[in-house]
């Protein structure tokens, strides 16, 4: 299209540029339409991008440990080498140690990838249950896609270091589920920082938190506000995405119109400049050739000045609307959609809405009835984050069964054990162990290689960071945990935790949080 326009411009110029003895002139430089800036959701991949401040990475070799790779494979006695923040070697037996590396004897111990929690409210609902710290639910209107947890996360939450002590290296910090659309979630590495922007997982896409069912309708319904029912839930979510569709169309229209305007303006300008250039060159030619040939006629034309075209006014772009832009980003897959949903019918209603308005659900969270619709969710490639045994605390959680994770895993879904709790996040290894044990008791064929993926590789996929972390593979981030025994044992403790190769936790080490300063025992 752009090329066609240029040909057209050149043709017009040719038609005006005269003939005969006039030497051919260099073609005028046509003004190219200026590339328009990206739509806001394209430019804004992550709100926290660019602030990452990794701690110093150490050079570490662990030999003799059982390596649960989370690739489906276990190495009974192997070596893993961490250097410059990455895993640079993993293999059986004793691998050579690079110069200057710290060598750790891992005999009888276990190494796993760092645990990843897809569902945390650390920092926005901190461990200390103080009213002043309730920063997780902007329950002032049911759709708050414009808020983002990165703006509220309190990096001094004493729960953070306790999560790391449980082997957790990355979390998604979600807004709560009081709202239909709660806002943007941010994915952090649990390095010590004074701001979530220092902890941000560089390159991780933001999440969009949505919620089904009881919570939103309870929050607003009790004040006789919408949503009061599940009908209201879906209606408002639909309306929000229809608004996003409109914003997307408005931007597309604006881009098209503005591109045309700039092109037309450019054409006029180019024509003017071409004429002006030709006149200059002809003047020079006529001066040199003593007004020979057509110069008389030309000079008559030159008595009239060339009319310089006025530049056209830029068309105003659509108004900025960060919330709706976030929804558009979700529709385009730039922001991953995670939906708090318990009941099978609620999940299917959400999937139908997603089809209707044009977004994809990356994962359902809690998803206690995912087992009932596991075939459908598997077919769609939707992951499910769930608990090993939470159930019954509300009616939509009454059908929760301990075999949920095992059943959805067996059906080919990516099963994930999440915490949603400052207590549970400290023991996700145990929780995965419970889900494994429950599945086995139910006669489902499962291995520890499966269960370790429920808290590492699968959550990494759900958060869009599986290329970077979630397994012990060469080239991946050195997010690694050394356990004193099998992580599926209740007696297991993380001895050391590295995040991006930096030793972030060592058992018995000092507390970090300023909140607990002075409380050392």
């Amino acid at each position, binding site marked *: 299209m752009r090329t066609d326009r240029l040909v057209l411009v050149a043709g017009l110029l040719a038609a005006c540029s005269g003939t005969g003895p006039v030497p051919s002139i260099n073609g005028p430089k046509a003004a190219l339409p200026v590339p328009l800036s990206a739509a806001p959701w394209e430019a804004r991949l992550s709100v926290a991008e660019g602030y990452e401040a990794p701690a110093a990475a150490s050079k570490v070799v662990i030999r003799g440990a059982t390596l649960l790779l989370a690739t489906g494979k276990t190495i009974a006695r192997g070596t893993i080498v961490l250097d410059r923040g990455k895993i640079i070697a993993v293999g059986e037996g004793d691998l050579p140690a690079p110069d200057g590396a710290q060598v750790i004897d891992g005999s009888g111990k276990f190494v796993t990838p760092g645990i990843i929690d897809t569902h945390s409210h650390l920092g926005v609902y901190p461990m*200390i249950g103080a009213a002043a710290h309730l920063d997780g639910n902007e329950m002032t209107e049911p759709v708050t896609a414009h808020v983002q947890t990165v703006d509220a996360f309190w990096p001094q939450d004493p729960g953070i270091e306790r999560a790391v002590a449980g082997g957790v290296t990355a979390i998604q910090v979600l807004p709560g589920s009081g709202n239909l659309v709660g806002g943007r979630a941010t994915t952090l590495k649990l390095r010590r920082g004074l701001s979530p922007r220092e902890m941000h997982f560089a390159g991780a896409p933001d999440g969009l938190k949505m919620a089904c069912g009881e919570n939103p309708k309870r929050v607003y319904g009790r004040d006789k506000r919408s949503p009061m029912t599940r009908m209201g839930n879906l209606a408002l979510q639909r309306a929000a995405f229809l608004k996003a569709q409109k914003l997307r169309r408005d931007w597309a229209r604006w881009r098209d119109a503005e591109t045309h305007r700039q092109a037309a303006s450019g054409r006029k300008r180019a024509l003017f400049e071409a004429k002006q250039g030709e006149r200059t060159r002809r003047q020079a030619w006529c001066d040199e050739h003593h007004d020979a040939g057509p110069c008389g006629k030309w000079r008559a034309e030159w008595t009239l000045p060339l009319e310089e075209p006025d530049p056209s006014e830029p068309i105003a772009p659509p108004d900025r609307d960060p919330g709706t832009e976030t929804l558009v980003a979700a529709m385009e897959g730039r922001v991953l959609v995670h939906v708090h949903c318990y009941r099978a019918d609620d999940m299917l209603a959400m999937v139908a809405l997603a089809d209707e308005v044009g977004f994809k659900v990356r994962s359902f969270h809690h998803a206690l009835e995912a087992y009932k619709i596991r075939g459908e969710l598997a077919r769609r490639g939707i992951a499910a984050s769930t608990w090993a045994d939470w159930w019954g605390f509300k009616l939509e959680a009454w059908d929760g069964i301990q075999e949920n994770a095992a059943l959805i895993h067996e059906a080919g879904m990516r099963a994930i054990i999440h915490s949603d709790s400052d207590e549970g996040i400290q023991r996700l290894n145990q929780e995965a162990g419970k889900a494994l044990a429950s599945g086995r008791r139910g006669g489902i064929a499962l291995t520890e290689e499966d269960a370790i993926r429920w808290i590492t590789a699968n959550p990494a996929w759900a958060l869009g960071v599986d290329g970077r972390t979630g397994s012990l593979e060469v080239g991946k981030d050195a997010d690694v945990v050394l356990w004193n025994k099998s992580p599926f044992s209740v007696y297991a403790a993380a001895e050391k935790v590295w995040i991006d190769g930096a030793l972030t936790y060592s058992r018995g080490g000092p507390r970090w949080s300023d909140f607990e300063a002075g409380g050392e025992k």
Partner: protein
Amino acid sequence: MNRWITLLALVAGAAEAAPAPPPSPPWIAIVGATVHTGTGEVIEGGVVVIQNGKIVKVGKGLTPPPGAEVIAAQGAVVTPGLTDPLTSLGLIEVELESTSRDDEQGGGDRIRAGFRAADGYNPASSVIAVTRAEGVTSAGVVPTGGLFSGQSAWADLDGATAAEALAEAPLALHIRLGAHAVEGQGGGGHGTAILRVREAFDDARVFARRRADWERNQTRAFAASRLDLEALNLALDRTIVTVFHVSRAADILTALAVAREFKLRAVIAGGAEAWKVASQLASAKVPVILFPLVNGPQSFDSLGARDDNAALLHAAGVAVAISTNETHNARKLRQEAGNAVRAGLPYAAALAAITRVPAEAYGLGARYGTLAPGRVANVVVWSGDPLEIGSYARAVIIRGRKVSTRSRQSALFERYRKAPTGAATGR
């Protein structure tokens, strides 16, 4: 109105047609297991013999009596049935459905000593079957809310009626001190809470001494109702224990002082900072029921919480019991005990913390909590170490009877297990 009359008639009819007494429980002999008696004793290749709902014999190399149902348990572990001392089992079906809750008296009055958990206990709750399938055979059924929450009951997790299931009611009086104790009554904190507690106990003493005067309206006005004052006297005359739900070290000491002042049989529940006052607890011989997963500052009452609380208290000589403080996940009890071991509590103490110590803390040690002749036969046969995650209850025996481990949850699993692709949506 007619519906109510019909309903009342039905209820009355049901009451008249009393069910036949259950057949007497069979002889059961559990053979070949590693038996943990709950006292710290471990018997390899032990035999546990059960008859008429009681444990008859426990030992090594015993011959099962003829006619006994033999449970071959070689390679298995046998323990006393687990007890979670602080739950709302049978009182809460679904936490967020108020019509399914009977765990608190409600209303603005914070003194609810008269409220009895036993009156609302529902033996048909779906939570009970789920819980006992995991080896929890008894539970403290505890009222919540208020400053004085009311009186708990001891439930064995079997039985068709509340009367059958509840082995002891009232079990204990529950007092909740701390920052939230008097919330909703115009505020007030720790000090206000303790003021009200003292006032109520003091009034209860006077009430008991001058009951006849009170009936003639010849006493001063009391801070609590008649039913509350009567209930408080159960604690004052040491018929039942008094459980102080309290976290902060300073409040624990206050609770000990109140217990001394009114000569109460005290138990501390929660006790996040109990390790700080371990020696005082030990010398007062006051047991602590704690929550091992509370290991950080969840509130300003628990800034000193730490994961080795149980280990430190045990080392100081305090009797430590463990509770989940949950209802739907009271089944996590053994995992919590396992975590206490991980944080330094000796294994035998952790096992005792979920078997013997809860019974002893409530004054029921002669009936529950250990495997010894004469004890109620609440026994669990485990596939392995009961505190370990991969283990499960192979057989659960309550009052000498093997109970079903089926539940609404297991029925759902079986139903959907048969649909390997899940429900289709029509595409």
